[in-house]
């Protein structure tokens, strides 16, 4: 009985993992094709590379961002992620400016001693920080993107799974014969 339960549970978990992997692969490929950042149900995950927003979130943590459809409704105190040249910056809104019907934001890092030198226009905003953060995971993700990380997390397990699948098939054929 216990063996049966274990078999069913492992099959369910294996199946869910497989579906999750397929889903992630689909998300990654679709975002690569569209040229946009990967978004899952309206949320994006970002690794924090520097510490100007400490202690709100730490360097090396990952944060979630709710992608906005209307970037002109943000208020003073909200933490927004926006494009600045080729970078994505996440800072707190210090001041909301409205001129000629256009909204722009003056921002500042919590850990910075002064406001940013730039003004963020509404169309540059990607989304708002939701308050969800996991510290240190960013370091692990960073390692996963190295050559050693790719070998450890993708190539070795992938080869193992392929070998296992072949052996299973082989034994099934043998049993059938």
């Amino acid at each position, binding site marked *: 009985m216990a063996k049966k339960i274990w078999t069913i549970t492992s099959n369910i*978990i*294996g199946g869910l*993992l*497989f579906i*999750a*992997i397929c889903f*992630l*692969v689909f*998300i*990654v490929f679709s*975002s690569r094709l569209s040229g946009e*950042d*990967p978004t*899952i149900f309206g949320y*994006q*995950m*970002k*690794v*924090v*590379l*520097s*510490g*100007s*927003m*400490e202690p709100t*979130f730490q*360097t090396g943590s*990952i*944060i979630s*961002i709710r992608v906005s459809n209307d970037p002109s409704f943000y208020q003073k105190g909200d933490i927004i*992620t926006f494009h*600045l040249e080729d*970078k*994505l*910056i*996440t*800072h707190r809104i210090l001041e909301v400016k409205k001129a000629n019907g256009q909204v722009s934001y003056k921002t500042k*890092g919590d*850990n*910075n*001693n*002064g*406001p*940013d*030198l730039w003004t963020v226009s509404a169309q540059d905003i990607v989304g708002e920080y939701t308050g969800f953060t996991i510290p240190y995971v960013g370091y692990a*993700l960073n390692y*996963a993107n190295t050559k050693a*990380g*790719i070998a*450890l*997390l*993708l190539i*070795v*397990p*992938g080869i*193992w*799974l392929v070998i*296992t699948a072949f*052996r*299973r098939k082989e034994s099934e054929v043998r049993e059938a014969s």
Partner: protein
Amino acid sequence: MRKAFHKVIMFPCLICIFFYAGTQVVGETEASFSSQVASEPIELSAAIVFPGTIKQLEDRAQELASSMHLIYETIMATTPDVSLQVLYGRLAEIQNIEQKLNLQLAALNTIYDELSSYKNQTLDPAVPDLYTYDYVQEGFQAVQSILQEVKGTIDFKQLEIVRSSLKWQIKKLEEKEKSSEKNTQARGQEESESQDKAASYLDASTNSINHVEVKEDGEENMDHYK
């Protein structure tokens, strides 16, 4: 058992792949650092002297010192016994070189004074950052040591001695020449006198010899007649 092992291993593999796929979904954001500095009035002032100038002065001092040493060595080289004409030439050369050495020493002193004035300016309490002008102090010290070394090596008194010795040699040779000329003249006179005397003696003796011969001839002739 083997099947179970494969199944157990399969989970971590799936988790690894899932984690890797997860990394591809996560992007990056920067919590960029920025700081603002209030603009303050900036005072701009030119340097008293630039390192290039100090280096140039130092090089010039080094050049002068080397040239002075070279010239001085040529003067101090001893000359063997030579003719009066060569000694005249050497004296003129030494006087020329001595003048040149004096000029070069004056130039070296000017460089030293210039660097000294720069050094004094840097020591002025109005100068904001003393350490900025370390190169002036270093340059001054270098030129000071060059000047001291030149003054220690090149002895102008020794030059004077060499010059006076040459003059003395020339004087001595001139006197020698004069006396030899006098001697030659005197000898010439004596020789001419002695030649005259010899000639007169010769004439006299020649006459007497002829007389004797004549006499002898007469006798011979007489004998012949006999």
